[in-house]
């Protein structure tokens, strides 16, 4: 899996949040995106998962010699962000089951249990998400993102609201993801900056 950006720009009205950004990321590489609040870290991740269109430039994923736009590559991506909300009136297992069905994944109760175990939520699958703490909700976002083993992980503020154990879990997930594809992490946490093979420092918008 290969990710390439060519002269990508993103504007909000007259403000250039991202301007003329080009980069290549290969399988197993970790890119950490850093920068002040409002510098465009979250915008970049939204562009990478096709939730927002670039004002100009091109984003392409290449997998098995086939090129995909971010929208077409969504089945290959896992996205974790504070903006990502799951259904609070459903249980964690119901959420995972629902998203597996709409993704077209074969899914069973055992799959939900295994995934929840992986994000250290074992035994809490039948609790409503509304009863979860913010840290547990963040772990559930990882379960959502890891469904079907994505080839690219896009992580926005990956350890926000997590305790030390949760941070260690996220660092493990990022390292394990090297086997499957590239990882893009948007953060200002010094411990996560150290995880990256490359650090992209975004400047405040002009």
């Amino acid at each position: 899996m290969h990710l390439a950006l060519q002269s990508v720009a993103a504007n909000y009205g007259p403000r250039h949040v991202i301007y003329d950004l080009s980069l290549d990321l290969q399988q197993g590489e970790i890119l950490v995106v850093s920068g002040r609040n409002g510098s465009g870290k979250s915008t970049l991740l939204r562009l990478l998962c096709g939730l927002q269109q670039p004002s100009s430039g091109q984003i392409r994923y290449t997998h098995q010699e086939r090129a995909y736009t971010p929208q077409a590559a969504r089945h290959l991506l896992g996205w974790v962000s504070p903006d990502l909300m799951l259904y609070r009136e459903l249980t964690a297992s119901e959420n995972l089951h629902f998203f597996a069905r709409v993704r077209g994944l074969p899914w069973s109760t055992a799959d939900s249990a295994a995934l929840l175990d992986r994000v250290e939520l074992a035994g809490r699958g039948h609790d409503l998400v509304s009863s979860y703490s913010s840290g547990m909700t963040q772990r559930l976002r990882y379960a959502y993102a890891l469904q079907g083993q994505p080839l690219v992980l896009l992580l926005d503020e990956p350890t926000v609201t997590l305790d030390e154990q949760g941070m260690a879990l996220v660092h493990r997930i990022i390292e394990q993801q090297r086997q499957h594809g590239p990882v893009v992490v948007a953060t200002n946490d010094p411990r996560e900056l150290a995880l990256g093979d490359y650090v992209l420092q975004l400047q405040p918008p002009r």
Partner: protein
Amino acid sequence: MKLLFQATWAVLRKDLRSELRTRYALNALLLFAVSAATAVSLGVGPLGSGSIAVSVQAALLWVALLFAALNGLARSFVQEEERRTSLALRLTAPPLAVYLGKLLFNLVLLALLDLVTTLLFLVFVRVSIGNIGLFIALLLLGSVSLVTATTLIAAIIARASFKSGLFAVLAFPLLVPVLVVVIQGTALALRGDPWSAGLPMLQLLLAYIVVTFVASSMLFPVVWEA
């Protein structure tokens, strides 16, 4: 195609489960239906069975259904935006499956609303139905018309700040032709006219459903990804 059916069914099941747990749209719809039937019953009373009376009864019934529908049918999309779950859905579900799932969910809601409103009108306004088969056919096709026309609009207005006002403004011009046809047709059914009298109305409603469904299915992915 199998994925589309599976995803559509999953969206419908998820919406029904969420609705049963939160009563987000159901309470609003049913409260409006009860309020409308009670207000008509107390304010107007039984109207008898003259030709003007059946036209007024048909109009009152459809006005009650329309306003309850406008009050509740946008909520499945609005709820996704307000609770910010739409991003997770957008990343995982095929757009057409989201549209079809929401459409079916709105149909279930409106079928329930039809049943409750009609029963309330039968009891409180003492509406008598001359041709029950034609009445049910018009009620069904009229409701499907409402849903096919308004589900796409609900997706459009879900991200706007002035949701309810915008929903009514956008839906009204699309729904006027449906309302004219179903009110006239329902008046015929209440009066007890034969099927042949109501057939042109049923054909018009069917044509409307096909056009709005096809147009909405084609436009929805653009609206959903905008």
